[in-house]
């Protein structure tokens, strides 16, 4: 059972969406984004119709990403459990809703242009996270990612 957050966990989502014709039907996605949970940062690359790479990254890599998603550990856990429960994020747990619920934003970036990739590809990225409903997740402890 893959653990969240880990490269293994995101690779499991990658495998699911890359085989999913509905993900492809959403259209091309060209973005490099980050997921930041505590001090753990993972970089995810989308190119054309698929997710092409998942890797561990560091603070210095954030500058080269279009944007990164950051929220407290408990909120990540809540989001992923909600997706598992409903098969996809319910309205109060979509990426956009979470983004509007955090004063500094869920999607963060070093420039105002690249951050807009969060909006341009929003439904594909949402679909990517929704794919976590198809796997069983084990959560690393908050201390493990601090």
């Amino acid at each position, binding site marked *: 059972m893959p653990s969240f957050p880990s490269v293994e966990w995101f690779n499991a989502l990658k495998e699911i969406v890359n085989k999913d014709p509905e993900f492809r039907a959403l259209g091309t996605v060209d973005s490099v984004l980050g997921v930041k949970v505590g001090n753990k940062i993972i970089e995810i690359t989308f190119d054309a119709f698929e997710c092409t790479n998942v890797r561990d990254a560091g603070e210095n890599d954030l500058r080269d990403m279009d944007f990164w998603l950051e929220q407290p550990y408990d909120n990540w856990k809540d989001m992923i459990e909600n997706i598992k429960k409903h098969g996809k994020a319910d309205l109060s747990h979509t990426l956009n809703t979470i983004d*509007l619920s955090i004063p500094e934003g869920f999607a963060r970036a070093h420039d105002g242009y690249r951050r807009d990739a969060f909006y341009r590809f929003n439904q594909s990225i949402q679909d990517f996270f929704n794919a976590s409903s198809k796997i069983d997740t084990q959560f690393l402890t908050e201390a493990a990612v601090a």
Partner: protein
Amino acid sequence: MADTITIPENLRAKASEKGWPEDLVRQALDAGAGAEQIIGYMDQGVTAEQARGFLAAQAGSGPEISDALKAAAATAQWPEDLIKQALAAGAAEADLLNFMNMGVTAEQAREFMAQGGAPQLDLSWMQVPTEWNTRARPTKHGLTLEAINIGKYGEIPDVWPYHTEMPRGAVPIPGVESMGYSIFEKQEVWSDNCAALYEEAIQRRWRPATDVPWASIEPLADDVERALCQICTHISEKEQMEADVLGRWEPDISYGYHEVKLYLATTIFENARAVEVFRKRALSNGGGLGMQSPGWGFRSVVDARNFTEMLSIQMVLQDSLTLAQYQYLEKYAKNPAEQYIAAHCLQDKARHVAYAISHIKYVMMHRADRREEVQRYLDKGEAMMLQDDKKDPATREAFAIYFGDGKANIGEGLQIYNQMRKRAVEQYLARLKWATIERADGLNPGLKAFIQ
């Protein structure tokens, strides 16, 4: 005598390339044709068979008819004189066999011949000196506009000198009338992302009629339904206005910048889709349309006298607000249909903003002297946007009631409305900053109030 005629080397090479046997070439030279003339015939696609028929007719003996053709002619009841006439006129034996097999009668063939047969071909266009042997290859994204921008076809000039509809990379001909374009400079319209955004728009399209889960809409409280219908009216109106304005600019942009023209076409389509989907939502749950907007902001866009001015106000300033409206409409959606609509319009609108802000950056990088000019456009656009705020309580109140889930919670709804406006202004400033425009100090106080 023809056997003793020497074939010039260039003619021999061309004959070899085109499959004309040497005896035929000698026969043609013997008949008085010049070497260059024969090469010309070859380049025009005249086959050896046609040439032989022509020479035979010239010699008065008539072309020979093969056994196969004789047999087919007998079956089709085409007389021999008709066959000879057709061959002498340049028809290929294979074509005649085809006509016979297709059931063309001798009488029909005679009528066709009487009308002059096949038209004389010019084919000089086949010698056009464009860049040839171009072989664009599909990428992971397919065969995209960027993938075909290779060689001369990918050279996007700073100034496009042609007033006609000639595609970039084609060869101009004299005497063609001007098409009335007025934009001939790259910096007036260009953004480095326009070709990619065009492909993205095409790939990420959606269909309101069938993709939106319309059946998920259930009756809403009357005040909430009225609020949403007012919002639908407002958005339909402004998306239609954007489509109209962009549609008016399209014919002004010369063909040197077809990537921009194509991208704007998708933008207009997406504006139309937004008009469609919000109108459909307004008319699908027992409500109807609401009150029109005063349109102060619209005027500043319609009255723009140059393309960058229009983009600054419409697709940077106004669309930053619309983008924030779609974000909040998704969050406060009352059902999956409304969520779907807002989420997908959000993606479309983000592309519009991405094109416009990238254009502004291009202008700043290539025409730094226009920096103050852009600031003035934004001064004007912001002032007119605030006029709308003053004169259009319907839009503000409708959003507040929808966000607050009813008139009773309008206070809470107004707070959310102000958060939405704050977010729109912050993102507007962040985008401008990326485009190297520092706007925070010059921002209209009315908009500054949202972020303080």
